[in-house]
């Protein structure tokens, strides 16, 4: 396991860095979406996997980031890069506002509430609230990102932009794991009562997890809007949230697990495009089978620095 972390991770980065040069334009597009979905799935993992809150509305924050970028660019003429801070901070603030009243809810109720937020969001953009969201069509023809006056119009440059965002997210995730907040989240997921009794303010940390997850998803939204030069309500329906939810649980709440999850749930269906009508049918069976064979995901989270003999006893909760 240790070796894998030491060698597997750099190997992954090298492979991903040269990958787009080996692909044709269709697979480049798939690869970019793979990167974006990985970032969203990682942000979902902070809320669902790390903090243990049943969030089935992650597409809301993803979509919010994408729409903020699109609106600021198309309506107010902001350069794409300049929209990034807003596309991170505004979803994060919404994360706090939405999570505040609901984090105390029992698992399944939280799940339904977050579905509700997602559906309200889609209805808001569809009904063209404030006349800026473009209604059911969405917003089209966004600018491309420009760095030092160079327009990043080609797919490959968008790929590297998405890749940089993924590396940034991985960096945040690794630091989170080692930070005080990360440990607090870990305790409260394992046993909330015990976490509270040793003085962890669980409410604050849960809201923090929501805000962090929302901010990262918002950033991914900006990349998404860049890739397609467009945003549209159907890309952020709650069925997308179901996808991110399943990715984290099928893959397992670890970085390799999530990469596998995104690959299985998103890239494999693209590979089997010819069987388009069959793929989700088979895919549903695969989800059931994966859970029966590996209920904690294909690559479950390891327990950090805690010695193995200590954790043997406590295999409750998840």
């Amino acid at each position, binding site marked *: 396991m240790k070796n894998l972390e030491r060698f597997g991770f750099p190997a992954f980065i090298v492979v991903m*860095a040269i990958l787009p040069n080996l692909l044709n334009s269709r697979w480049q597009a798939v690869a970019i979406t793979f990167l974006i979905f990985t970032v969203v799935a990682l942000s979902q993992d902070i809320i669902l996997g790390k903090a243990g809150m049943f969030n089935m509305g992650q597409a809301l924050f993803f979509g919010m980031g994408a729409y903020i970028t699109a609106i600021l660019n198309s309506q107010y003429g902001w350069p794409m890069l300049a929209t990034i801070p807003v596309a991170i901070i505004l979803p994060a603030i919404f994360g706090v506002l939405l999570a505040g009243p609901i984090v105390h809810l029992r698992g399944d109720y939280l799940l339904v509430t977050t579905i509700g937020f997602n559906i309200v969001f889609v209805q808001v953009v569809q009904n063209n609230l404030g006349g800026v969201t473009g209604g059911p*069509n969405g917003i*089209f*023809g966004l600018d491309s990102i420009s760095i030092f006056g160079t327009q*990043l119009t080609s797919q*490959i440059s968008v790929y*590297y932009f998405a890749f940089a965002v993924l590396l940034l997210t991985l960096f945040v995730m690794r630091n989170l794991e080692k930070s005080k907040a990360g440990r607090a989240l870990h305790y409260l997921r394992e046993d909330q009562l015990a976490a509270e009794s040793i003085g962890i303010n669980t409410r604050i940390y849960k809201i923090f997890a929501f805000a962090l997850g929302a901010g990262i998803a918002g950033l991914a939204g900006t990349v998404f809007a860049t890739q*397609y030069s*467009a945003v*549209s309500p159907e890309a952020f329906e709650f069925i997308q949230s179901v996808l991110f939810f399943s990715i984290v649980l099928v893959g397992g709440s670890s970085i390799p697990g999530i990469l596998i999850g995104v690959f299985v749930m998103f890239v494999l269906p693209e590979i089997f495009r010819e069987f388009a009508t069959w793929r989700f049918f088979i895919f549903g069976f695969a989800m059931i089978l994966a859970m029966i064979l590996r209920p904690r995901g294909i690559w479950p989270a390891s327990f950090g620095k805690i010695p193995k003999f200590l954790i043997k006893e406590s295999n409750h909760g998840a």
Partner: protein
Amino acid sequence: MKRTIRNVMLTLCAVAMMAGLSWADTLKVGVQAPITGSYANEGQGIENGVRLIAAQINAKGGVMGKQIEVIPCDDQGTAMAAAICAKDLVNKGVSMVIGSYTSTCAEAAQKTYFNAGVLQTSDGTADSLTEHGYWTFLRNSFPNSAEAAFAANYMVNVKGYKSIAVVSDFSSYAAGLAEATIAEIKKAGGNVVTYAKIKADSQNFTPVLTNIKSKKPDVIFFAGYYSDGGQLRAQQKALGIKADFIGGDANDNPDFSKLAGSSAQGAYIINVPSPDALPYDIAKTFIADYQKTYGMMPPSIWGLMNIDGMRAIIHAMEHNQSFDTKKAADYLHNMDKPLEGITGSISFAKDGNRKGGAYVVKEIQADNSYKIVHAQ
């Protein structure tokens, strides 16, 4: 690491630019259409038609010596896929794009084609398509506003309805048609008692219809699609609303009558005539060729309109003796003599709209057949 990435990026940008300059020795024609998805048969109709006319032109020596190469892209009838198609077709170096079928998909792709100077011709009827001022866009059907004017005239002057209720869903097509019709009704001195919006596919329209009932309209004009229209008609009857029912062009589908069941009889539908009713010689020849090649009728008139759009662009290029897209657009916007088309004579206004209109009103009979009761 970062420097490497930047270098790689810069190199690749350079390569991409070089690729853009590569020489083209065929006339590349893109087809952006819903080849799969809910509108698959319409999309395939467009692709088949374009391939047929391209083969016919190529057999006669092509366009100014260049053979036509057809490059299709499936937009699945969704806006996101349409945006991807637009980028893809532009990267492949097309000089014109035929399609798409829905206004939403055409609109999603418009700006990309405009930025690249690629001509686009679509049967989309939403008025917003020609409101952006893109010289690259040419509408080969008639805009919603033309249908709206026809519908308003029929309701106010021909039928003499005193109070009219208008219903639409949220799509750009339906809302656009509804709003344009309301404006035309008011211009004709008619009275719109209510304008209600429904959510497409939500099935339960009784709350909205109950509100409409309290306004006691003479007629309900529905601007949405047949899948909602049939249910709306059935629920209207079930609520005992005596008003007539007039559906816009998207209700012209056999499923409308099946959904409405015994309530379908007496409903009116406004649309352009179906392919078999086109009186022109060029239409008869082309439809016969189409049937011979594909073993079926074209699915609707919309695919034929797209082919007329393509023929008009090629006609302009041949007239100018130039493949320049801007010159072709300039010529088409100022045509003094219209081109004979499969769907009637075709010429364009300055804003890219097709001039004219050819609507009919059909009444659904007891056996679910249509009877034309009024024509433009």
